[in-house]
C-alpha cells in the first residue's frame, strides 16, 4: 500500500511538469469537444492525432491520448441529452432517459448529474487502478478461450436485449454484424473471405465508416425527413443544479454503475458501451417503478454514465498490465507506445515507472479538469449545441466524411459509409437497433477465434462451455438476461402498446 502511494507521488512529479500538464489539458479539452460532437468519436480523434505524438515523449503522448479518451467519455452524454444523438456509442443509453429529461426542461440537471457521476466513477476507478492493477490482471489471465467465448455471447445478447427495439430484429443485427466481421482475411487459415475480388476489403470492413454512418448519418437523415427539425432545447440555467432528491436517488445507482462498469472494463471486448447498457438494465430491473425508465428517470443517466466512465478507466488495465488492448482506442494507444520504442506488457510497471505512474497521476488531474469543463462550462457547450440544427448537421456530415476518409486515405471507405447509410436507414426504419451491428463487426473475429480455440481444446466437444465453471456462469447470465427482458414482450395480447417496456 505504502509502495503504491510512493509510486503515486512519483507519478505526480512526472504529471505536473509544465509539458505533461499541458498535454493533459489539451487532451481533456479535445476529448470534450470530440465527445460533444456526434460523428467524431474518441477512436477517430486518437487515430487522427497519433501522428502528432511522434514528436512528443512517450509519456506526453500517452497522457494526451488518454485524456482524449476519457474526456470524450465524460462529454459524450452531452449531445445524447441535448440532441438525442450520442456523442459516441457508449452514450447511446444516456439518450433513453437523458433526452426525455431535456424535453421536460431538466437538461441542466441531467448534464450536471452526468458530470458528477463521471467524476465520481473516474476517481474511484483511478484508485482501483492504483492499488489493484497487478492482482487484477493476474486474475484475468485465468480466463481461457471457452470463457472468452461465453463472455462475448453474453455481451452480444446483453446489448441486443437492452435495445429499445424489437428483440428478434436486434439479435438479427448482432448476427449480421458478426457476419460482416467475417469479411476479409481469416487470420487462422489465411483464406480471404467474401471480398468479391475487392482488394481493399482484405483487411475486413473498416468499422469506423460503419459506425459513423450508423450512429451519426442515419440519425441526421431521419431528422431531416421530419418537417421542422426543432432540435434546440431551451434550458433555464436556474435548473442547472439537480435537486437534493435527485442526488439522493442517484447515489446508489452511481455506485452500482461504477462497480459494474469497473469490473467490465477490465475484460477485453466489454468496455464502456456494454457496461453502460448492462448497468441501465440492472437499474431498470431493480427500480421500484421500472416504467419511469425511458421517460426521464434520472437514475437512467447517473448509473450508465458512471459505468461508462468507470469502464473507460479500467479499460487501461489490460493494456498497461498485460499489453493486451481492451478496445480499439486502447489498441491505438498501444501502437503509439510501440512507435516510441516501448513494449507494454507485465514489465511495464517496473521498466517504465515514470510513464505508468505519470499516466495514472495525470488521470487524476484530467478527471478534475473534466469536472470543471463539464459542470461550470457546460453552459459553453450548451450554447455551442444551441446553434440551430440546420447549421450543426452539415458540420457533422463533413466531419464524418473527413473522419472516414482520413483513416486510410481511401475513398473506398467513404463508399462503405454511404452504403451502410442506405442499409442502416432501411434497417432502422424496421426497428432494428444499430448498436448490435457494430458490436458484431468488432467482436466477430474475437468470437470466431475463441470459438475455434475452444473447440480445438475440447476436441469438438461443445459441452466444454458448460463444464467449465466461469464459462457456465457467463452462459447462465446470458439466459437470465434474455429471459428477464423477453417476459414483458411475451404479453403481446395486451392491446396497450405503452405497456411494452419500450
Amino acid at each position, binding site marked *: 500500500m505504502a509502495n503504491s502511494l510512493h509510486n503515486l507521488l512519483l507519478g505526480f512529479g512526472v504529471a505536473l511538469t509544465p509539458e505533461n500538464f499541458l498535454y493533459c489539458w489539451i487532451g481533456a479539452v479535445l476529448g470534450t469537444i470530440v465527445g460533444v460532437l456526434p460523428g467524431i468519436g474518441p477512436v477517430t480523434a486518437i487515430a487522427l492525432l497519433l501522428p502528432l505524438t511522434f514528436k512528443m515523449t512517450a509519456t506526453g503522448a500517452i497522457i494526451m491520448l488518454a485524456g482524449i479518451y476519457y474526456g470524450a467519455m465524460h462529454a459524450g452524454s452531452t449531445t445524447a441529452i441535448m440532441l438525442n444523438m450520442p456523442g459516441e456509442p457508449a452514450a447511446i443509453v444516456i439518450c433513453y432517459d437523458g433526452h426525455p429529461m431535456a424535453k421536460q426542461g431538466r437538461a441542466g440537471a441531467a448534464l450536471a448529474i452526468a458530470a458528477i457521476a463521471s467524476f465520481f466513477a473516474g476517481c474511484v476507478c483511478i484508485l482501483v487502478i492504483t492499488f489493484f492493477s497487478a492482482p487484477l490482471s493476474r486474475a484475468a489471465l485465468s480466463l481461457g478461450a471457452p470463457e472468452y467465448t461465453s463472455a462475448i455471447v453474453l455481451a452480444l445478447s446483453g446489448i441486443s436485449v437492452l435495445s429499445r427495439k424489437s428483440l428478434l430484429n436486434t439479435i438479427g443485427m448482432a448476427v449480421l454484424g458478426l457476419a460482416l466481421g467475417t469479411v476479409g482475411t481469416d487470420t487462422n487459415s489465411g483464406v480471404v473471405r467474401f471480398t468479391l475480388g475487392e482488394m481493399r476489403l482484405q483487411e475486413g470492413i473498416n468499422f469506423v465508416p460503419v459506425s459513423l454512418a450508423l450512429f451519426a448519418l442515419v440519425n441526421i437523415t431521419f431528422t431531416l425527413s421530419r418537417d421542422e427539425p426543432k432540435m434546440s432545447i431551451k434550458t433555464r440555467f436556474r435548473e442547472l443544479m439537480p435537486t437534493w432528491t435527485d442526488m439522493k436517488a442517484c447515489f446508489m445507482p452511481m455506485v452500482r454503475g461504477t462497480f459494474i462498469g469497473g469490473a467490465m472494463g477490465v475484460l477485453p471486448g466489454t468496455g464502456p458501451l456494454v457496461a453502460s447498457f448492462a448497468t441501465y438494465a440492472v437499474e431498470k430491473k431493480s427500480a421500484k417503478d421500472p416504467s419511469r425508465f425511458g421517460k426521464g428517470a434520472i437514475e437512467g443517466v447517473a448509473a450508465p454514465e458512471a459505468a461508462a466512465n468507470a469502464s473507460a478507466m479500467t479499460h487501461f488495465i489490460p493494456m498497461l498490465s498485460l499489453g493486451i488492448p481492451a478496445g480499439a482506442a486502447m489498441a491505438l494507444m498501444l501502437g503509439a507506445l510501440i512507435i516510441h520504442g516501448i513494449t507494454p506488457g507485465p514489465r511495464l510497471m517496473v521498466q517504465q515507472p515514470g510513464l505508468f505512474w505519470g499516466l495514472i497521476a495525470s488521470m487524476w488531474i484530467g478527471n478534475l479538469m473534466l469536472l470543471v469543463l463539464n459542470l461550470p462550462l457546460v453552459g459553453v457547450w450548451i450554447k455551442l449545441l444551441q446553434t440551430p440544427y440546420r447549421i450543426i448537421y452539415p458540420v457533422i456530415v463533413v466531419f464524418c466524411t473527413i473522419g472516414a476518409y482520413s483513416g486510410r486515405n481511401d475513398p473506398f471507405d467513404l463508399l462503405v459509409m454511404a452504403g451502410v447509410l442506405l442499409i442502416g436507414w432501411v434497417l432502422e426504419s*424496421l426497428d432494428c437497433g444499430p448498436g448490435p451491428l457494430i458490436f458484431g463487426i468488432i467482436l466477430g473475429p474475437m468470437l470466431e477465434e475463441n470459438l475455434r480455440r475452444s473447440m480445438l481444446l475440447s476436441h469438438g466437444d461443445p459441452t466444454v462451455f458448460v463444464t467449465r465453471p466461469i464459462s457456465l456462469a457467463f452462459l447462465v447470465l446470458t439466459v437470465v438476461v434474455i429471459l428477464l427482458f423477453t417476459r414483458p414482450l411475451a404479453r*403481446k395480447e395486451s392491446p396497450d402498446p405503452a405497456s411494452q417496456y419500450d
Partner: protein
Amino acid sequence: MLIEKINTTIKAPKDLIAGLIFIVIGAVLFFASQKYDIGSARRMGPGYFPALLGLLLLGLGLAAVVKGLRAKTSDPLPHHQLAPLLMMFLSIVSFSFFIERAGLVIASAFCIVFACYRRLLTKPIEVFFIFLGLTVFNGVVFIRIFEMPIHVFWWN
C-alpha cells in the same frame, strides 16, 4: 403508396420485412460460405463460422416472419421521405469522387451542397458561409496541423 398498402394489409410489417431480409441474407451467407473449407466442429475451417451465422440468421428471420404474421397489435411502417436519404448518399459519394481528383475544396463544396439541398434556393448565402467556414477550418486543422495528405486543390 406502397407503404400505405403494406400498412393496411399487414399488422406488423416491420418484423415481417426484417425477417424476410434476414432470411435472404442468411441463406446467401450459408451458400456463399460453402465455397470455403467448412471443416468439422473440432477443426473449424474458414467456412464454418459464416455458415453457422448464416443458419442462425435464417432461423431468426423465420421466427421474425412468424412473429410478424401472428401479430395482434398494429405497428405500421413509418413514412419517411426518401429525398434526405438520397441527398446524404450523394453528399458522401460525391466527396469520395472528388477528394482525390479535385481536392478538398471542390469535394467539400459538393458534399455541403447535397447536404444542404433544401436551403440552396431559400438561403444560399448561409450555405456559402457554412462552406467557407468549414473548408477553412478543415484546411487549417487537418492539413496544416495534422499534416494529413489531402489535396486542397487539384494542383497540389
